[in-house]
């Protein structure tokens, strides 16, 4: 299901816990992941050679629910694109993808969503629209009948907060894929929680109840 993830056990002893990665695509028995080097784990991953073995556990978590008949808007910020790639592929021409990133170099990743109608922006203006992906979405959202819109998003917390305030007035349906430091990936440890508006049990597990949540249930 688009939005699900795998826990990858990296080779060697440098990294203790497994690392979660969104499944970007599947081809037969193969799966693809996309990642950005940010720490020890992804650093090690980038040094892995072709045909080296790695243990994967998955697919895990609850993915996106596709609302049939809606106008689909996919919003991705930076490496958050990895979380929505499989969804974009599944929806194909039915989805419009809004992708925002820092620079022209990262904008090259839009090659991954060639099957969709895509709008791109960079924060420094070196490629596409100059500004944030939420500004870009705001410009385009106006033309649509908002009672049949479904938005799917993945990106940094700042982007999700901006998205929430953009959609606040009309409370458009929106599913977001979130990220958190994770230990088990199976719902065993309650390490990777996000705070929600549920008063009885506010902290929900990203790996089990997520990683996709209803934007209107999250405390961002």
């Amino acid at each position, binding site marked *: 299901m688009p939005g699900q993830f795998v826990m990858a*056990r990296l080779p060697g002893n440098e990294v*203790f*816990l497994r690392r979660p990665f969104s499944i970007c695509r599947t081809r037969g028995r193969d799966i693809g992941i996309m990642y950005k080097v940010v720490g020890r784990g992804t650093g090690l991953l980038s040094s892995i050679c072709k045909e080296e073995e790695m243990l994967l556990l998955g697919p895990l978590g609850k993915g996106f629910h596709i609302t049939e008949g809606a106008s689909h808007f996919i919003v991705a910020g930076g490496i958050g694109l990895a979380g929505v790639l499989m969804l974009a592929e599944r929806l194909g021409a039915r989805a419009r993808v809004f992708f925002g990133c820092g620079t022209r170099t990262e904008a090259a990743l839009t090659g991954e969503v060639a099957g969709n109608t895509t709008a791109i922006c960079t924060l420094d203006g070196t490629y596409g629209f100059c500004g944030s992906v939420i500004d870009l979405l705001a410009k385009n959202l106006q033309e649509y009948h908002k009672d049949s819109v479904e938005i799917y998003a993945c990106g940094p917390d700042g982007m999700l907060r901006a998205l929430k305030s953009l959609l606040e007035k009309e409370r458009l349906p929106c599913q977001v894929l979130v990220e958190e*430091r994770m*230990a*088990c990936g199976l719902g*065993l*440890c309650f390490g990777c*929680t996000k705070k929600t508006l549920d008063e009885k049990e506010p902290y929900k597990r990203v790996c089990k109840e997520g990683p996709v949540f209803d934007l209107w249930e999250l405390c961002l």
Partner: protein
Amino acid sequence: MQRGTGVRPMGTLSVDLLGTKLGNPIMNASGTLGYGREIEPLWRVETMGAYVTKGLSLKPHHGNPTPRVWEERCGMINSIGLQNVGVERFFKEYFSFFQRKEMPIIVNFFGFTEGEYVRCAAAIKPDRLIVALEMNLSCPNIKEGGISFGKEATMVKSVVGKVKNVTNIPLIAKLTPEVSNIVEIAQAAREAGADALTLVNTMPAAVVDTANRCIPIRGGLSGPALKPVALRAVYDCARAVPIPVIGAGGITDVTDALAFFMAGAKAIQIGTATFVDPYTIPKIIKGLNTYLDARQCSGIKEIIGIAHE
């Protein structure tokens, strides 16, 4: 002993713990196997001799904000904040899962005052599936300046004694390793009526995020880094305190498990290793069976405490 028939002789790993016969002496450490059902897509929870519940409290606890987990080279640090649904909801909604399986459980519980421990223990009704209550003594005593109950023999004696007065269920004291003399604490627990010990809980630790120049997490250290600390506690207490010891701390493979049994543990708990490899528990059970068979041991009892001889 039946050999070569493909039939495993019954009882090889079985142990009697506090009056209950367990199929094997392997359990999860509290809080590392969710509410039990989460592992079922991979293996059946009744593979273990007993399931240890998430730490339960009188009232539900929401837990801490994130980050709640952080990796270290030889382990991890957690600060979950004892998130749980509360003892009442556990027995209303989660216990039936174990009843259907006829699965023995150990109920871990905690409090932040003596009164909370006592009321929580009193709220747990005896049941033939409840092997014991496991009392988490690492919590801060908020009425005594926030020092952990488990760090002072006098506090241990007082709170264990009061809990013992309100329950007929066997009581296990789970101790923190961050003490000057764990044998003294263990003895205090026994004198107050504890029927067994779980050694050890996580060790207080912190992480510095050098990139952001901050301390993102202070919590409990678990995993391989804790193993030698736990083994020392198990060895010393098994020698000096005449009640069963359950070993816990960094057990990752069958060799680690054997080390704890040889040091005197009657049963063991596995926690963090499950996060690294979710099949660790069934692998260790299988490995112990293989070990006993290869040495023609009649049971795990033969090796418990053997390092003391």
